[in-house]
């Protein structure tokens, strides 16, 4: 078979599925067959192309043309006008500034390590992963490196946990390796529940083998024989693709007994969650994996010594693990050329809200917010002005336009009393009411508080009630002070990060938008809150 003249990459992710991608694919294949192009044009189903909110998105290579909002009835035109006659269909074409990137032809300022193969390969085909350098890192470490050397390389690379806290991954692995006991576990935390975040889902959907390879490497490094991916129950496509990838890896001898005849054995299971935000907290996740309610454990002891079934356990986020194979192939020194001295590497963000091009982007650590919003996100919609950015999800902080040039990494943001968290960047324009947005966050926490410790259970409830008084103008400056006191008490005394982190959104909102809160509290609410106050 001769190589194809053109490739059509069709993003098949959860969002595309709900836009009817299956029907578009069927129509595309039919149109190509009808025009006699089936041999020379190859259709590849891949993960996200990094574009969100544009329905079915596809890319045509080598031309590098992206189409969005493609419906089955548009396909014939694309096939005939573009693929046969070579002229792009302008009415469906996405503007070049859309946050998309391909290896070697980076658009905007993206640096793709973790997302290198997402939107490039067919995630359901292990051979495409292998053809693009997949499982090379695993083969290399199994035959050329001792477990201690693997850990040392990850430590020297300076990789830090991408789940939010930024803990050094090498130290975590070393602690599990040196913990006493022969039974150890590697857990991939894919219980992605932070509102506005879906990077882990897109990594799992777009490049599932990368995670399996990384978990196997972690298993070799720490001395574990079993890995478990704890994935949100709602992520049906991720679950299906992971299960398929595991099956394929086992068939190729890359998972299971005696991997590549190296003498090392490791297997991976997938466990769906059952709907609880708090299970993203690692000790709650462990409880849930044991079949119990997801109540966070009192720490110490930490999971590195007392994890699943009380055994030493590595718990790493999806994005953290996704960095591992490239570090081992290209080395710690290469990794340190990316990002900042204290936070090497890249970070994946979901840029959402009132931007022109919402979507998934990967940039070097330390890239300022301005680049994310104005270059990769295309700026604000309808020519409106920026009012605030909620960074890090619901447990994140409200930043203002003055913060646009702060480098985004774990350390610089900590100086602004904000967190990088899960990489959610929610952009709000001048029409947004911050009082209303904070209300949505408070209700979310009230609902998701697990109820185990008093400060969080009572605090989240009190905050919602105080907020209601603010919104409908039955409060004063003392109410705002009371809210600040409560979140401070929760920060100091809650059992887990859920209750501790509510101080971030509440304090940043009250401090940065104090006038707005005072106006509401003293009886001059915005239009939106007035109408809602009347309804309740």
């Amino acid at each position: 078979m001769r190589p194809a003249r053109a490739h059509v990459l069709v993003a098949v992710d959860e969002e595309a599925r709900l836009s009817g991608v299956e029907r578009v694919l069927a129509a595309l294949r039919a149109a190509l067959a009808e025009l006699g192009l089936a041999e020379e044009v190859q259709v590849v189903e891949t993960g996200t192309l990094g574009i969100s909110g544009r329905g079915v998105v596809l890319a045509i290579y080598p031309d590098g043309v992206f189409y969005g909002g493609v419906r089955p009835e548009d396909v014939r035109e694309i096939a005939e006008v573009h693929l046969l006659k070579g002229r792009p269909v302008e009415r469906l074409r996405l503007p070049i500034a859309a946050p998309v990137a391909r290896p070697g032809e980076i658009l905007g300022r993206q640096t793709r390590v973790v997302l290198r193969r997402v939107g490039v390969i067919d995630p359901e085909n292990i051979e495409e992963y292998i053809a693009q350098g997949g499982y090379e890192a695993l083969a290399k470490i199994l035959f050329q490196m001792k477990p201690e050397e693997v850990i040392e390389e990850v430590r020297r690379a300076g990789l830090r946990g991408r789940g939010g806290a930024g803990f050094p991954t090498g130290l975590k692995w070393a602690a599990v390796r040196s913990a006493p006991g022969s039974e150890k576990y590697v857990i991939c935390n894919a219980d992605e529940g932070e509102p506005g975040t879906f990077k882990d889902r897109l990594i799992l959907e777009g490049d599932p083998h990368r995670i399996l390879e990384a978990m196997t490497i972690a298993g070799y490094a720490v001395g574990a024989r079993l890995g478990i991916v704890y994935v949100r129950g709602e992520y049906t496509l991720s679950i299906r693709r992971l299960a398929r990838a595991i099956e394929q890896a086992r068939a190729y001898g890359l998972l299971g007994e005696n991997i590549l005849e190296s003498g090392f054995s490791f297997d991976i299971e997938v466990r769906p969650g059952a709907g609880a935000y708090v299970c993203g907290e690692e000790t709650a996740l462990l409880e849930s994996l044991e079949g119990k309610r997801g109540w966070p454990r009192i720490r110490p002891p930490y999971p590195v010594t007392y994890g699943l079934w009380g055994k030493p356990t590595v718990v790493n986020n999806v994005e953290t693990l996704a960095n591992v194979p490239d570090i081992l192939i290209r080395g710690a020194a290469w990794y340190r050329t990316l990002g900042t001295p204290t936070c090497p590497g890249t970070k994946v963000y979901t840029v959402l809200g009132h931007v022109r091009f919402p979507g998934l982007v990967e940039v070097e650590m330390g890239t300022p917010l301005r680049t994310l919003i104005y270059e990769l996100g295309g700026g604000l919609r309808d020519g409106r002005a920026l009012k605030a950015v909620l960074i890090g999800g619901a447990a994140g902080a409200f930043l203002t336009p003055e913060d646009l040039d702060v480098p985004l990494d774990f350390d610089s943001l900590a100086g602004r009393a904000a967190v990088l968290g899960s990489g959610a960047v929610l952009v709000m324009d001048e029409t947004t009411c911050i009082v209303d947005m904070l209300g949505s966050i408070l209700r979310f926490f009230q609902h998701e508080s697990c109820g185990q410790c008093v400060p969080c259970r009572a605090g989240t409830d009190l905050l919602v009630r105080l907020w209601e008084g603010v919104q409908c103008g039955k409060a004063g400056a003392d109410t705002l002070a009371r809210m600040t006191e409560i979140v401070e008490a929760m920060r100091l005394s809650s059992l887990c990060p859920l209750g501790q982190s509510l101080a971030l959104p509440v304090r940043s909102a009250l401090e940065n938008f104090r006038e707005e809160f005072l106006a509401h509290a003293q009886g001059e609410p915005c239009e939106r809150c007035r109408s809602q106050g009347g309804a309740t």
Partner: protein
Amino acid sequence: MTVEKTAILQGFPRSPDVLLALLHALQRANPQNYLTPEDLRLAAEYLGLPLSRVHDAVTFYTMFSLRPRGRHILRVCGSPTCHLGGAGSVLAELERKLGIKAGETTPDGLFTLEVTSCLGVCGVAPVMMVDEEVVGNLTPKRVREILRRLREEG
């Protein structure tokens, strides 16, 4: 115990860590989308756990219900991203059209309305799940269309 339930139980190893997966399976098999007292007892006996331990887990997770639910379950995402996109008006329209509040089931047993946390498809906010399917870019008008379609299907 029905033959069907025996078959479900025997699809799992007798190990306490499979509890959530086993409960998911039992709930899926019930056309009214909930776990009966018998289900909890069966799960406890099969896995060798105290009944209280099973009850403890069931009441914690939002995906499980101990009350009969409608044939269709509508889960509206209430997270900040969807809120910014107008989830409030979507929920209000659903409550008005169905005549129930979030957490309730319509008297004809057709719909249960729930609010869920982030579904991770924020690019098309506001979003809801209609049974197993995710529907995005919702407006009050689209909500009315969806309800009409589901009513016609019955």
